[in-house]
């Protein structure tokens, strides 16, 4: 028994100290929420009155993440909470920039391709972006003066897609109906020029009305001719949109193996809104008219060309196959895009909150200082009331603190959770609940001693009864935390999470630390024969009659 208790006590202390050391050594820290370090928080919701489902929202979250990542915001937090999307951008202060960043429509456009440039060799998208913010002005000129921009209007020839096979990338060229693509005229030096200028350009070129922005990915302007990036890093100039993803039947796009490689099949809606729209486009592209000289039809989502397959038939009925050298993941992604495009959602910013960094820091500092003073006062009170037993409370709070800090850090590191002001408040409140576990136990202990039991016996019986109470009461807290976490949005969630976390730690510490600590103390000389909490007791259980005169 005694050995077991010692194991438990030593075990939990080693666990707490060990976790804390690992965290400190690895430099994991709890990621602070926006309200504690400044930044912008945007809450988006679908504009009311439109049909959508969760997968459309999930796709929108994915799109926002791509955009935010391409812009290079550190530690962004992008979450879907029920049917709202919360985007937290720490360190960003420009509201307009933040709103542009999260402005995704989920709309898929079908746009004829005028010309395409090869992907710049091995240039990651993010690096393009970071220079873009500073050099966009000059970059626009470069693109504007290059031959590519004027190309579609003067010649019918496209710039070769995938003309730099060294990248190993399949390029934007895909085939529809698995007919081999026609090899477009070889790229001249213009392609190279565009390729390199594309490095620094993020601005949309072409006809006026195109949005100019400093954000990593350009905005889609379906009514204009634009240069848009492809998923593999290339660029294509595309004409005005000829139709939207709504020509496809919802959820009909399926990735599958077609003719030895991965591809996507999708069904067209019947009638003029589906096949009608599609076939007009297909006809243009199949015939290589001036509106679609490259014979490719781009599938664009939020300013990025997902795929630009060549059209190999003039008329389609029922369904369309897109084949090419896709990987399974690429085909799946394309199918997902086409499915969501069949039912796009328009999001609107419901709440935009900017917190200045100084205000955030002040709040954090105030919360920390107040918390420390609060804990010190509680401990002082415990020592005044429970005397030596309060030592258990002191070490116990240390163990709880180390565990909560470590868990918070781990969660920040691996699950993208952040500690917000509401979370800090949740933790401060949980001090009361944690202390209560000790109070319930110690008051029990007193009852048992008064009933005439030895300290050793009292500790054992007292814990059993107290732990029962702690479990029931903490269960209620846990139910509350879980319900709030599942059903609420924003700050309430953060609060619920930390309340739940600290409640669980409380139960854990009560069983694995407080129990062995008090039980061992009750056997030790430290407590024996002393007045414990005013109760005269001795180790042998001989109890002085309480309050009796004789």
């Amino acid at each position, binding site marked *: 028994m005694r050995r077991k208790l010692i194991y438990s006590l030593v075990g939990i202390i080693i666990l707490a100290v060990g976790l804390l050391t690992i965290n400190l050594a690895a430099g994991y820290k709890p990621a602070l929420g926006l309200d504690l370090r400044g930044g912008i928080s945007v809450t988006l919701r679908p504009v009311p009155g439109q049909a959508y489902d969760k997968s459309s929202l999930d796709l929108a979250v994915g799109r926002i993440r791509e955009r935010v990542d391409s812009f290079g915001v550190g530690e962004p937090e992008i979450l879907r909470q029920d049917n709202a999307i919360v985007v937290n951008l720490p360190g960003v202060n420009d509201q307009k920039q933040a709103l542009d960043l999260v402005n995704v429509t989920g709309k898929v456009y079908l746009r004829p391709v005028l010309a395409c440039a090869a992907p710049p060799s091995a240039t990651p998208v993010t690096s393009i972006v970071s220079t873009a913010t500073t050099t966009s002005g000059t970059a626009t000129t470069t693109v504007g003066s290059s031959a590519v921009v004027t190309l579609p209007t003067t010649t019918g020839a496209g710039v070769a897609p995938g003309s730099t096979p060294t990248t190993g990338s399949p390029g934007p060229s895909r085939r529809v109906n698995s007919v081999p693509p026609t090899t477009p005229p070889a790229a001249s030096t213009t392609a190279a020029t565009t390729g390199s200028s594309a490095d620094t350009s993020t601005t949309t070129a072409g006809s006026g009305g195109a949005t100019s922005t400093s954000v990593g990915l350009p905005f889609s302007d379906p009514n204009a001719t634009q240069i848009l990036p492809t998923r593999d890093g290339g660029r294509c100039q595309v004409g005005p949109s000829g139709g939207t993803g709504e020509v496809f039947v919802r959820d009909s796009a399926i990735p599958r193996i077609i003719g030895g490689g991965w591809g996507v099949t999708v069904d067209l809606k019947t009638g003029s809104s589906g096949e009608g729209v599609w076939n007009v486009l297909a006809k243009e592209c199949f015939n290589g008219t001036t509106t679609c000289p490259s014979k490719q039809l781009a599938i664009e989502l939020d300013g990025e060309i997902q795929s630009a397959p060549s059209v190999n038939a003039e008329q389609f009925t029922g369904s369309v196959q897109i084949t090419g050298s896709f990987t399974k993941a690429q085909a799946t992604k394309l199918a997902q895009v086409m499915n969501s495009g069949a039912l796009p959602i328009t999001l609107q910013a419901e709440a935009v909150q900017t917190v200045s960094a100084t205000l955030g820091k002040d709040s954090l500092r105030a919360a920390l200082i107040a918390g420390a003073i609060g804990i010190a006062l509680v401990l002082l009170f415990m020592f005044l009331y429970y005397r030596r037993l309060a030592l258990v409370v002191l070490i116990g709070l240390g163990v709880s603190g180390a565990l909560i800090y470590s868990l918070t850090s781990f969660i920040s590191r691996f699950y993208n959770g952040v500690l917000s002001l509401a979370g800090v408040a949740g933790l401060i409140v949980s001090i009361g609940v944690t202390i209560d576990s000790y109070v319930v136990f110690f008051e029990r202990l007193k*009852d048992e001693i008064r009933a005439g039991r030895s300290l050793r016996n009292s500790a054992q019986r007292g814990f059993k009864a107290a732990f029962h109470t702690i479990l029931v009461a903490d269960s209620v807290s846990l139910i509350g935390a879980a319900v709030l976490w599942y059903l609420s949005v924003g700050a309430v969630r953060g609060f619920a999470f930390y309340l739940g976390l600290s409640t669980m730690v409380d139960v854990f510490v009560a069983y694995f630390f407080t129990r062995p600590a008090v039980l061992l103390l009750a056997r030790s000389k430290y407590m024996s024969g002393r007045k414990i909490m005013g109760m005269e007791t001795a180790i042998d259980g001989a109890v002085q009659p309480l309050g009796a005169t004789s």
Partner: protein
Amino acid sequence: VSDVIDTESDIQIPDAPARRSRRGRLYHGETRVDFMGRKWWGIGASMALILVTIISLLTQGLNLGLDFEGGVQWEVPSAHITDAQARAVLTANGVNAADAKIVTVSASGVKRLRIQTPAQTTAVRQKVSEDLAKSAQVSVNEISTNSVTAAWGTEITKKAVRALVVFIILVALFIAWRFEWAMALSAITAMLHDVLISVGIYSLLQLEVTPATVIAFLTILGFSLYDTIVVFDKVDENTARFAGARLPYDDVINVSMNQVLMRSLNTSLAAVLPVLSLLVVGAGILGAISLREFALALFVGLITGSYSSIFIASPLLAWLKGRTPKYRSLRAPRAIGIDLERLVMGGSPAARREAQRLRSAAHTGDTATAVLAPATPEVVLSHPPRPRKKKRR
């Protein structure tokens, strides 16, 4: 509390053991407060508070913050900017300055101007921020803004209400399963009482209700239930303990309340101290405004949470249980004074000796003593019952 504890000390019982001082008894948990006898004090006080709350809610309503009403808010360090200058900036940007609510708040010794207007477009918001920064001679990064559509506020409220309803149902089921329905009903009534009074404070003082306030109310709700559960756990234990003694339920409650009194006081103090520190040090001295409202709601909520467990939940439980067939027949007068204390300390050596003395007195025919001896169930229950053996499975 200490005033109440000693009201029976003038009753002289023969051979009553020497008693400790008032504080000593409280410290040692030897109190004998007749909570049930004073239940109308508590209920009356609560009724009065609730009445004030309802009147205030009907007449003034709640001061709902930006997040519920929709609109835009800017917060600017106001060392170099005045109210009038801020209004000029608003007017220059086409915002109707007459609609704007401008207040000065103090945070960390720095005065900040808080400007609230109805909803504005993104472009206007950004322009106003820049212009305000210029006027205030600070970087635009120093300005906090917050913009919310009214629809979103409604959404948050709806979600919170839905979460609340689910929470109450789940907790009621849990308490009913773990204890009994009467306890579930009492605990939830006490919880609603606490939230209502906290909301009343917000309405009465016209404090702004923010999302942080909602969190605070939810915390109050959680703590109130937590506290009530701890008290009811004791009641539950005593119900089983006195089951054979046919003790009226009022007495069971009284005994339980006295037994958990010290725990309730200690826990309340331990829970309130950090919140008080948050309120006084965090919000008051260090001036973190965002903490102030939160801490205030919690402060009120934690105190009512502990209070209602004893003065609302328990009398209600006694009333509900007292009507059940099992307890209806037990119409004995409540044990008060020393009898109550004996029940509270049931099983102590002193009590045991006393019980023995009474029994032997009755046996030997010492009628004088026997008549004097109070016929409390304590005589029956002279020592705590042996703990039930664990069921073998």
